[in-house]
């Protein structure tokens, strides 16, 4: 949430050297967790460590005193929906880029479910170019696995990868046909490319609008059983064993699906997965009295599933935390529950809600940050997520303890559909730096 201001740092602004001193340095890529500083020169990091102090870096053009707050690589969010091109009234690269920087996210990967779908080289290049010109977070697109996300014919994934698509997914749609999924995995493995699946068996999920169980029954809403997720995860793991290749499951949310992935990892399959903050911080009771902001895909599950997600984050079965940012305008949400659109905005609450895992004692701070930096960087082979010399100076400075309350109306995102509206959280982004330029900062 925007507690601070954006600066109009543009790529051609001259940059000198900046010393960020008096910080608790957190770099999961190297295991660093110590007091010290970071020195940047132009767009790059040139030194990191305990000897970067106010005195030691007195020759730097600018000195930023971090006042003991945490300094980490800028966050990487691998699951963001932008709505540009096609639905700019819900979100644009600019509005969501501001949301991202307010959330400490310096790099994100956007889903191909725009209009048109990202299935052509020109669209991959459009997104990358627009983002570069805005000077906000760095954007990498997913390519579509199948043409028009229809789940029938495989898209030109080799060509799209060449143009800059970092992985392939049909977005919010599962690749449902077993033969198509087998061929997609098999063909992608030709080039060593990653397929990201939205794991939900569409036949069983059809008509369901919230997690199946007592609450759906009482609200008179059609239930969507968690078995729909488990079935597709189990099927795809069989296909992965058959084809080889790499498979990533997006936003896993239920205990049985997680168990299947845990076993597959132990058996040596190249499978990874992520989850989103709603699945470890909320459960189906958030739907309450038909709150459409809590209508997500997959649906918020029961408490037992939420606990399983937390346990899987702690034991490493779940590799990555992604926001699952899905802007929806008022007209899409102010509807009877069954008719309302799925999804919640999440960029601005990603860090704060993830820090609950640390505050509640489930994960060490460095591990929480690792799931937001090192892990997504390695998964998608992105040039980001580390603090080492020579890396891009993409940095987030945050106060892990500072408390605030989520107020959907105050979000920078063009759409305000946060499932966390009204939630008290702990941990605030103080400064976001991209390529050495401060793009967002809270006045201290």
């Amino acid at each position, binding site marked *: 949430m925007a507690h601070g201001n954006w600066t109009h740092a543009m790529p051609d602004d001259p940059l000198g050297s900046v010393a960020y001193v008096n910080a608790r340095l957190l770099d999961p890529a190297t295991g660093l967790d110590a007091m010290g500083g970071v020195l940047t020169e132009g767009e790059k990091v040139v030194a990191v460590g305990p000897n970067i102090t106010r005195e030691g870096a007195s020759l730097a053009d600018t000195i930023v005193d971090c006042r003991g707050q945490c300094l980490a690589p800028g966050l990487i969010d691998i699951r963001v929906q932008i709505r540009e091109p096609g639905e700019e009234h819900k979100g644009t690269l600019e509005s969501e880029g501001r949301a991202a920087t307010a959330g400490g996210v310096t790099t994100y990967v956007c889903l191909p479910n725009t209009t048109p779908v990202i299935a052509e080289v020109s669209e991959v290049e459009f997104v990358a170019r627009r983002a570069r010109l805005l000077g906000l977070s760095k954007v990498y697109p997913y390519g579509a696995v199948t043409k028009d996300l229809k789940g029938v014919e495989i898209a030109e994934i080799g060509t799209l990868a060449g143009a800059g698509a970092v992985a392939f997914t049909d977005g919010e749609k599962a690749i449902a046909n077993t033969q198509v999924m087998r061929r997609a995995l098999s063909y992608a493995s030709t080039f060593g490319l990653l397929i990201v699946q939205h794991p939900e068996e569409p036949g069983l999920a059809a008509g369901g609008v919230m997690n199946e169980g007592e609450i759906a029954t009482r609200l008179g809403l059609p239930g969507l059983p968690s078995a729909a997720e488990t079935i597709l995860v189990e099927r795809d793991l069989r296909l992965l064993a058959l084809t080889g290749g790499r498979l990533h499951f997006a936003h896993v949310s239920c205990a049985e699906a997680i168990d299947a992935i845990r076993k597959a990892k132990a058996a040596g399959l190249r499978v990874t997965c992520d989850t989103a903050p709603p699945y470890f911080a909320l459960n189906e009771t958030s739907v309450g009295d*038909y709150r459409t902001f809590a209508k997500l895909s997959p649906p918020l599950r029961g408490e037992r599933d939420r606990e399983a997600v937390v346990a899987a984050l702690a034991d490493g079965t779940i590799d990555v935390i992604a926001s699952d940012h899905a802007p929806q305008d008022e007209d899409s949400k102010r509807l009877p529950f069954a008719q309302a659109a799925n999804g919640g905005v999440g960029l601005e609450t990603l860090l704060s809600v993830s820090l609950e895992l640390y505050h509640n004692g489930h994960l060490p701070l460095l591990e929480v940050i690792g799931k937001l930096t090192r892990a997504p960087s390695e998964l998608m082979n992105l040039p980001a997520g580390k603090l080492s010399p020579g890396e891009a100076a993409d940095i987030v400075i945050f106060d892990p303890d500072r408390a605030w309350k989520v107020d959907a109306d105050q979000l920078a995102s063009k759409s305000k559909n946060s499932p966390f509206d009204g939630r008290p959280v702990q941990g605030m982004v103080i400064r976001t730096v991209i390529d050495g330029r401060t793009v967002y900062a809270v006045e201290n």
Partner: protein
Amino acid sequence: MADPPVTAAFPHRHLLGIEGLSPDEITILLDASDAYVELNRQAEKKRDALRGRTVINLFFESSTRTRTSFELAGKRLSADVINMSVGTSSVNKGESLIDTAMTLNAMHPDVLVVRHGESGAVKLLSEKVNCAVINAGDGSHEHPTQALLDALTIRRRLGRLEGLTIAICGDVLHSRVARSNLLLLTTMGARVRVIGPRTLLPANVERYGVEVFHDMKAGLDGCDIVMMLRLQMERMQGNFIPSIREYFQFFGLDYDKLAAAKEDALIMHPGPSNRGVEIDSEVADDFSRSVIREQVEMGVAVRMACLDLLGRNTEELGARNL
């Protein structure tokens, strides 16, 4: 004309469901309804209770019985009653739902009676208007006046609700009548059973504090009341039962299955019934057992009581606004 026969106050602005009502509040509504039953049996049925008030029946789903029942109830209380039927095809979009609510709200109605095909839609609408809202059925969620009229029918016949064994049979999954009845009857201390094929019972239905049966004779054994539900084919997405014929064979109420219930067990149905689907014609027309027509009569009285009690609250709201 005489004063309204009801004096107790109802402490809610809207009647959106049975959920959240205490046994005392349900009793207030039933007692008030009782008084109106007697009034409705007189030749002179008109009362002044809602003179000068406007009641709008806003039906997004077609209905004849419920709408007529509310219309008659409003008119007998001297309200100006307007019926608005909004075709399901033109208003399937909720933006129209909100728009309609705002438009009607600007006309200063005192009570809106709303039916909508989506669960939660009436609640959503109630958040956008200043008047009282009565839920006349929302999706598969609740239909509180139906549960109240069922309870009134039972209470007048058997003198109580507490301790009775009541079976609710058939398509519970799609039924808002069943959900409101489960809540009301368990709140009032009845022993409730649900009976139906597994495909037509919602997940975790036992969490209402009811016993679950899949065999009609076993479930009806010793029951005081047999409440049949309409098989709601229009709400079914896909195939929940193989055929009407097979459904009737296992779950249709006929004399053979009814024999398992108490000898004088009463038969109820919210209507309109599908004869030969969930209930045999002979059973439905058996006046010694079936109270289906009485339910319709009680409906008008219950709706008068609800309009009256909620209308009084809006009087206070209006006074405060001045």
